[in-house]
């Protein structure tokens, strides 16, 4: 057995069935050995998409995603995807080829120090020098990527190590004396937390991506029910609790739900679980949580107290700690408080208004049509930009791992490859990528991958011919000076998709989205929908550096629309071509 065979065997021994990759000079030996193997390989059309697809795979399935690229440019093309996985704590393994060991350091052809380059954005990295080490290196990489706070691990394999013969294939582990993640919460801290939560009059739960990684969906709900607390999520926590539930008040943050943003500062005890208090979630820290005691549960001690001062830290895995907390709280009867009722009422009276228009379509109405055509099992991925925030705002997600978006890094181009990865991981679930025209164009070559492997993802592109998010900021904060945000000469996306052999439709009419989407999702066929949307429709936000309660723009409510039967959208859309636009 040679090094490359050992890579394949060790991946399989760790439960991997599919990897995403792209060949090149220093990984030819690996690909040569892959040729005889039954490990499935998806040839993406750009290495960045291999990393994003591996992340989509990981986040949809809860397993570790694997991507592979050659040395030099192949490796550097993975960097954005690795950084994205690092920021969003996604367990992926990136394998890169490296020039032969005796050339390392000589500026050899296609040589880069990828370990050095990725040091700040990987959880750990290895460069095996001996083929005998490969099984253990891969085994340990899986352990590191998927335990503690999950994250990317890079394995850089010199070409001759891939070719070298192993004495024996031993799937051991590499000692990691410095790696001991804490999973169980300190019982004294748990008892204190229980006491604080019971004493609180206005408890509030903020759940982040860590709850999803921990699989703590049931626990979050159970705890919220026990202490009668509303649950807001960060973008990354979306789906941890059914957003249609009374307990759920949606996303908190810059483009968050009004009910979440306007109430969080009134709470007297915030229980934060698996979130890192990003500036996009909290707004101006000095004006965040003026009166609240903060309990922060996180598996990563470095996140506790980093941004928000914490009264009670609990280090541990969200699922385990919540179970401990639930056990401690069980039996205590908490009545539904005036606080909780007021929030439920606030939520009901501030259902964000979907504005309708005949042409161009309003982005909210498109998202609503999308919402009406998917089921609770549909996996939705998004790109980054306005469409992402429309989706986060108007799409109610009921289950974890069904909303996959680029959170921390904000990577345009993430949505489509992540959808490919998600579909490969969960072939039985419908997968829908909601993207913008800007981000889609960064990765449109992946249509070839979709066609090649018949990966039936449905792509709903909200096309405003703008870089919408920046355009919104320019509109609100830069005196409408639209510098370089007009996408001007966009391609004919329908023809573009068709040239790859992918069905496509341009949608400019009301209700068409729903009709076509429902059919495409049902038929399980790849399709690109180029949906023309209004460019001057903006989502309310707090300005960067502003407090969470500052609102730039205007919230509009369904309840403001008089004499309209909310269920009968057809009537409402005739009666208004409303605000928002200019």
């Amino acid at each position, binding site marked *: 057995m040679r090094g490359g065979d050992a890579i394949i065997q060790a991946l399989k021994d760790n439960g991997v069935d599919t990897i995403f990759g792209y060949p090149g000079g220093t990984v030819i030996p690996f690909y040569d050995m892959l040729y005889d193997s039954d490990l499935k390989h998806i040839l993406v059309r750009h290495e960045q998409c291999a990393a994003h697809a591996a992340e989509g795979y990981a986040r949809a399935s809860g397993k570790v995603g694997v991507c592979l690229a050659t040395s030099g440019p192949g490796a550097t093309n993975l960097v954005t995807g690795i950084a994205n996985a690092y920021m969003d704590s996604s367990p992926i393994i990136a394998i890169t080829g490296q020039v032969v060991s005796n050339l390392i350091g000589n500026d050899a052809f296609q040589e880069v120090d990828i370990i050095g380059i990725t*040091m700040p954005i990987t959880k750990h990295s290895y460069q095996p020098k001996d083929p005998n080490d490969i099984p253990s290196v891969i085994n340990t990489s899986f352990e590191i990527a998927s335990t503690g706070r999950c994250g990317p691990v890079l394995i850089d394999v010199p070409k001759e190590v891939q070719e070298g013969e192993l004495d024996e294939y031993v799937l051991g582990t590499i000692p990691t004396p*410095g790696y001991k993640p804490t999973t169980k919460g300190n019982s004294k801290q748990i008892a204190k937390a229980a006491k604080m939560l019971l004493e609180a009059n206005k408890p509030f739960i903020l759940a982040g991506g860590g709850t999803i990684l921990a699989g703590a969906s049931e626990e979050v709900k159970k705890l919220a029910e026990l202490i009668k607390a509303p649950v807001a999520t960060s973008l990354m926590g979306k789906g941890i609790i059914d957003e249609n539930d009374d307990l759920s008040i949606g996303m908190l943050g810059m483009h968050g739900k009004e009910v979440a943003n306007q109430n969080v500062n009134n709470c007297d005890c915030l229980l934060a679980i698996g979130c890192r208090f990003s500036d996009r979630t909290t707004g101006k820290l000095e004006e965040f949580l003026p009166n609240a005691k903060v309990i922060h549960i996180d598996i990563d*001690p470095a996140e506790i*107290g980093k941004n928000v001062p914490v009264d009670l830290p609990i280090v541990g895995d969200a699922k385990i700690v919540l179970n401990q907390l639930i056990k401690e709280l069980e039996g205590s009867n908490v009545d539904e408080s005036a606080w909780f009722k007021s929030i439920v009422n606030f939520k009901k009276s501030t259902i964000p208004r979907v504005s309708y228009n005949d042409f161009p379509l309003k982005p909210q109405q498109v998202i609503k049509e999308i919402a009406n055509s998917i089921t609770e099992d549909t996996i939705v991925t998004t790109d980054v930009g306005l469409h992402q925030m429309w989706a986060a705002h108007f799409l109610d997600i009921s289950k974890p791992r069904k909303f996959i978006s680029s959170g921390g890094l904000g990577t345009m181009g993430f949505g489509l490859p992540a959808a490919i990865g998600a579909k490969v991981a969960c072939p039985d679930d419908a997968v829908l990528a909601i993207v913008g025209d800007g981000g889609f164009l960064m990765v449109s070559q992946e249509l070839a991958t979709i066609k090649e492997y018949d990966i039936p993802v449905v792509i709903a592109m909200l096309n405003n011919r703008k870089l919408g998010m920046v355009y919104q900021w320019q509109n609100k904060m830069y005196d409408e000076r639209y510098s370089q945000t007009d996408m001007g000469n966009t391609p004919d996306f329908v023809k573009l998709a068709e040239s790859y052999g992918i069905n496509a439709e341009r949608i400019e009419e009301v209700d068409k989205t729903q009709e076509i989407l429902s059919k495409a999702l049902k038929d399980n066929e790849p399709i690109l929908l180029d949906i023309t949307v209004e460019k001057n429709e903006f989502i309310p936000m707090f300005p960067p550096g502003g407090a969470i309660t500052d609102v730039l723009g205007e919230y509009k409510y369904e309840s403001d629309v008089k004499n309209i039967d909310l269920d009968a959208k057809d009537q409402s859309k005739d009666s208004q071509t409303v605000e928002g636009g200019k």
Partner: protein
Amino acid sequence: MSEKSHVISTLVEHKPGVLQNVAGLLNRRGFNIDSITVGASEVEGLARMVFVVKGDEKVLEQVIKQLHKLVDVVKIKDLDPEYVLKRELCLVKVKTSKEKSRSEIIEYTDIFKAKIIDVCDDFITMEVTGNPEKIDSFIRLMKPFGIKKIARTGPTAIARGHH
């Protein structure tokens, strides 16, 4: 912002890339590294790295937590300045062109318990160890003779007694 000097002692896996990783992390989180010393530790396979860093007090806690996250880092301690023993090694090469210089230098060397490790016609090289302040004084005294070269290791450190 209060920028204080801290001595951070870390026990790390003795492997390539670890120094780069630890130093890079300190740098990224806004700490200026004054000095680094690295060498084998009492445990086989582990090295002790001692950093003298300057930075914001508030950031220090975060930096230590971030260091803990590095898989290759086994232990970290911010050594209490009250109980820290700091020692540095310094090599100084001084001109001895003047007749008198040589004897004066030798006297200072005795006082500082330094060692002469090389002598030639017009230079004398000494080795001095001690806490960084002592080395500073020694260098100050050597200045008038004409210092040709200085090589300092930067301090390594260990906690006193049971600390």
